[in-house]
């Protein structure tokens, strides 16, 4: 079945909320009905038809042609199916997604994959601050699924991560893995200051670590069978991450200020 194609006509002059444009909400709707969906976030009304040229197809697969850093909440609550964005998108793509596949070819704003619980999110370019983090007043960040950033990520990537795997193939900003509860965060290039600040449990793997906080304790060098099994699972998604996990790794336990059951690995 052909995918549903939404081709961006021009850069919107206000931020738009794209959360209604997900497969389970568009299923069974005609192109005309989709065109009438309101997306505005100011008093100026903008419908999907105003901003996108719509070519109908099966709603199980949605393709956005062109993108903008003002398109927020792309793929919010995605349960199944696929959304491909051939461009940039704004704040929190993949917010609270629980299944399916969301691919953003370009860059995205902050809070990508915020509180996602399942599925696969891939960002081809750079991600903003607070990757997978909880929003204002929420207690948990990502709780499941797989997130891959091919470029760099901003500050506090994986904040309050609870479960699931994040791979950042580029560099990470300051405080990656802050307040982690569990889960896995892998950073393949440089990493900002104080990784794992306030982490309770969970695993951070850094190819190029900065000086760790004094509350991380040296536990020696390990060749872990589990890391190799995990590397096998990741190989198809990120060869470089798999290679990193296959090497002998130094292990530091922390954050001793919090529970201290987390760990930071880096090549020995």
């Amino acid at each position, binding site marked *: 079945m052909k995918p549903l194609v939404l081709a961006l006509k021009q850069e919107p002059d206000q931020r738009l909320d794209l959360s209604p444009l997900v497969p389970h909400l568009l299923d069974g709707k005609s192109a005309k009905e989709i065109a009438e969906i309101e997306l505005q976030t100011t008093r100026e009304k903008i419908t999907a038809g105003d901003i996108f040229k719509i070519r109908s197809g099966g709603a199980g697969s949605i393709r956005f042609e062109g993108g903008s850093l003002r398109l927020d909440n792309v793929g919010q609550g995605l349960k199944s199916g696929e959304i491909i964005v051939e461009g940039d998108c704004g704040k929190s793509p993949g917010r609270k997604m629980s299944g399916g596949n969301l691919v953003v070819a370009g860059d995205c704003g902050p809070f990508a994959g915020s509180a996602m619980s399942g599925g696969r999110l891939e960002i081809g370019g750079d991600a903003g601050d607070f990757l997978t983090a909880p929003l204002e007043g929420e207690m948990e960040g990502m709780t499941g699924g797989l997130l891959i950033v091919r470029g760099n990520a901003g500050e506090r990537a994986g904040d309050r991560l609870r479960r699931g795997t994040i791979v950042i193939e580029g560099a990470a900003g300051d405080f990656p893995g802050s307040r982690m509860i569990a889960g896995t965060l892998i950073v393949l290039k440089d990493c900002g200051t104080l990784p794992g600040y*306030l982490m309770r449990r969970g695993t951070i793997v850094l190819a190029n670590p900065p000086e760790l*906080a004094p509350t991380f304790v040296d536990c020696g060098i390990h060749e872990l069978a589990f890391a190799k099994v995990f590397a096998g699972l990741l190989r198809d998604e990120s060869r470089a991450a798999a290679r990193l996990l296959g090497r002998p790794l130094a292990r530091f336990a922390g954050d001793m200020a919090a529970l201290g059951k987390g760990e930071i690995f880096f090549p020995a």
Partner: protein
Amino acid sequence: MSEARINGKPASLAAAAERAAAILSLARMPVVAGLGTDVAGARAAILLAEKLRGAYDHMHAARIFADLDVMRQAGLMFTTPNEARLRADVFLFIGKDLTKIWPDLLERLSPAEIPAYDLAREPRKLLWIVPGRGGGKVEGLAVQTLDSSDLHTALASLRARVAGKAVYGAKGTLRKLDEFADVLKNARFGVAVWGGDGLDSLSIEMLHGLILDLNKTTRFSGLPLGVGANAAGVVQTSGWMTGFPVRTSFGRGFPEHDTWRFEATRLIESGEADAALWISAYDGEAPPWKKNIPLVALTAPQTAFAREPQVCIEVGCPGVDHDAAEFSRETAAIVGRLASQPSHIPSVATIVGEIEKYLGGDA
């Protein structure tokens, strides 16, 4: 009488209000920024934002959210300055500019005094975590200081030592940390006092964790000094009006809170907001953004602007020129203040009311 200007030229108050209403109602996304005003001014400004379907933010929002984000994602324990003065046998000060942030801090807490309601009635202990040597002196009291250029790691190390966990550090630093940990654990009622830009939400969450850990065996609480321009009062006003703190928008017709999307400077620099109302009645601060957008300013007299606003109306200082309700650090609550030097300069609420008169029905 109040001074009003349109494009830098003196104008009548009515003409200025009419021009301001025209600028704000023509905008797709107006933003009410600054919000340095009393409770009545904040109420009027937030109602205006609702009418205009714009967003509103406070000039010190970053500092506000350093505390508030911890409170709403992890929790915080608070006490009042009076409670601290009467009962605390241990003070833990964190940050270097505490007495600059609140000049009356030491007078209000009287650290050198024996706490009136402490049963042991022993001299207080004051610990101060402060960057640089020589900082943190209090008359009449021996202050123990921990020199720390990095508050993140200092607080983390201290919390780990209080919990009896291993940390790395030079021998002298570790000895000092253990001395501090000992004093904290033996406190009967300790109070942590913090403020300033050196602390972000992560270090405050670490401090909150330390306070929680200490409460397993004794009593310990917190006293954030917050920030000026009635920030705490405006946040509370916003809370009872919309259910949210500042950085809230009425763009869709209902209040929506988002600390990233509705940050005033970001909204303006990105071109998403196309007109601004700037309010600074306390200190007469100028807007921090660089982009040139239609601007209406309600500020204290003699405010220096980088670029003359389209409309500028002088407003009085709450509690000085006119009676005002505002947040008071002394009581940690909203109080009424009588004008100390009553004048005829109008309040923010009065001027916002004037502007509102000229708004069309559909604005």
